[in-house]
């Protein structure tokens, strides 16, 4: 059995390099444990992939939605790999030689001949950006509200939490619809509306953490040496509440992507002709009855992929970061 040495004052202030070394070690250990979780692995790969595609499309493809239309290509069926496989599946007569496979519209084209793959790519970057901004907003506001409420308790807590109750009393989508109607339909207002509906989720989580941390010895120690409330919240309560907040942020990203797409689907998000996955799905409804599946399937599958990625990563993070929540 190892002997535990009493900590002396001369040992306590570690050199910056040592601190850095320890931090790297923690990060390495964290990533190793994350990689050991299958759901985090799959989710992480999907998230990195979608982020990469979204960044790449935004950086390298200069897309002018206002001029995009090519009437000869109206409702062109998917060609390329998908077209080839479909032709091959449907029988030999329709099959074309592999060398003659064309790749004009791998995901097909929509009712005015716009390439769906290109629009899905740009729609994906819109959805991811909207999700990230919305969650950043609700995370920052919700965390402050929850930590302050939980730490201060008393009437501050009551007022803050009753306000959260009022937001929660609405079905979130309808509240977002009402806010967007007030502010005017646009992607930016949609993001803000989604952010507002998500604030109570983070506030309640942060509050529950703050309440359990409020009475710990280290907070009392900080209070007894005269540290201010703000300092205690920032240096002690917040760092110790991070794990569940990180998990909820990841899961919240999936929700935010779905909700902004839902607003787009209802015509209250990104306005046409700019590509947005929800709006593309709404437009696909007309052509669905005549069997034009590709207009709907590719934007739909993209949303599912983004949300699945965040949910898997969130589940994996929960297993690693917060063993108490593991069930």
């Amino acid at each position: 059995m190892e002997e535990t040495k009493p900590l002396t004052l001369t040992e306590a202030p570690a050199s910056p390099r040592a601190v850095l070394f320890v931090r790297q070690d923690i990060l390495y250990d964290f990533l190793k444990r994350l990689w050991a979780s299958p759901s985090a692995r799959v989710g992480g790969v999907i998230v990195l992939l979608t982020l990469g595609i979204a960044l790449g499309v935004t950086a390298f493809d200069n897309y002018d939605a206002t001029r995009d239309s090519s009437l000869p290509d109206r409702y062109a069926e998917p060609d390329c790999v998908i077209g080839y496989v479909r032709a091959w599946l449907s029988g030999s007569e329709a099959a074309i030689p592999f060398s003659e496979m064309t790749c004009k519209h791998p995901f097909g084209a929509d009712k005015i001949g716009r390439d769906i793959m290109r629009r899905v790519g740009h729609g994906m970057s819109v959805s991811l950006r909207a999700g990230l901004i919305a969650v950043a907003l609700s995370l920052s506001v919700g965390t402050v509200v929850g930590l302050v409420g939980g730490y201060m308790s008393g009437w501050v807590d009551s007022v803050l939490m009753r306000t959260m109750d009022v937001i929660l009393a609405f079905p979130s989508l309808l509240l977002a619809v009402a806010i967007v109607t007030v502010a005017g339909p646009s992607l930016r207002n949609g993001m803000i509306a989604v952010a507002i509906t998500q604030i109570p989720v983070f506030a309640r989580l942060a509050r529950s953490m703050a309440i359990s941390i409020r009475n710990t010895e280290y907070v009392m120690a900080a209070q007894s040496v005269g540290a201010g409330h703000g300092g205690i919240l920032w240096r002690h309560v917040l760092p110790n509440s991070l794990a569940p907040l990180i998990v909820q942020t990841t899961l919240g990203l999936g929700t935010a992507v779905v909700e902004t797409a839902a607003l787009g689907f209802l015509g209250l998000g990104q306005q046409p002709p700019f590509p947005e996955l929800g709006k593309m799905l709404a437009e696909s409804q007309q052509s669905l009855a005549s069997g034009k599946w590709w207009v709907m399937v590719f934007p739909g599958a993209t949303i599912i992929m983004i949300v699945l990625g965040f949910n898997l990563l969130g589940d994996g993070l929960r297993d690693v970061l917060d063993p108490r929540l593991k069930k």
Partner: protein
Amino acid sequence: MAKYIARRIIEAIPVIFGVSVLVFMLLHLIPGDPVTAILGERATPENVEAMRERLGLNKPLYEQYFIWVGNILQGDLGNTVRGNIPVANEIAARFPATVELSLAALFLSTIVGVPLGIISGIKRNSFIDTLTMFGALFGVSIPVFVLGLLLIFLFGVELGWLPFVGRLTSGVSIERRTGLHLIDAILSGNPRGFKDALEHLVLPTITLATVSLAIIARITRSAMLEVLNQDYIRTARAKGLKGRQVIMTHAFRNALLPVVTIIGLSLGRLLSGAVLTETIFAWPGVGKWLFDSIIARDYPIVQSMTLLIALVFIVINLAVDLLYAVIDPRIRY
């Protein structure tokens, strides 16, 4: 018990008040005048003034609010802006369609989700557990509007098995008693109407139920896992009780609290999902109607409906809390 219920109702009053003020403020903040939206840009000033008078919009905002609250307390929800029809009649005509859809979805998600969760919990890490949990993950990740369109395409368009527009085929009618088509068809002995209503209900119900089903299955599984590790389960097994008896009377009964909580919460989520589901399937309920009313700034409808929804939430939460005492006799109020 009665004291507890009374306290809960009193506690709910500030929340309802907050909700009503928030809705009122939000709606009156919407830029543009509802009167011009109704009468058009070319309305004469006299007509506009008369309309403002009829809607009570010429009074100060706080006065409008108190008039509205006063009317509500007397059971008068007002008339719709578009059409001048009593809001109460409109709600009575549409609410049953949403209730039928939501209850069907809740029924489906419970009847499938709870057993799946129990089986996954008992047979942890088995093939069926992995499959269920992956399915549940997929279920929470697929948005309502994507699933609805996929189902329409597969079962409505390609296979042609099920209808996907409205509640009934035109020409089929069901005598109205409760407003719930399935129950009305049984009450009036109308097998053709029952079949038609049921067919129309299938796709919207699956669409609406999937997310709740997935969440219920996940929660049931984790609650079962927690309970199955307890000492009293080992005791029950040790004293020779049959496996099924251990699972149902010892384990499941104790795992029921979080399951009931999540089923109650699901009802609220179903109301949100109903807006999208009703839009996709042209379901004549309150969800799509409320959405249209928000866009059209039809104040009386939106105000009454949000209040109704908030009340439904509060009643569900109260019912769930009271159910706790039924499930777990140690809980007393």
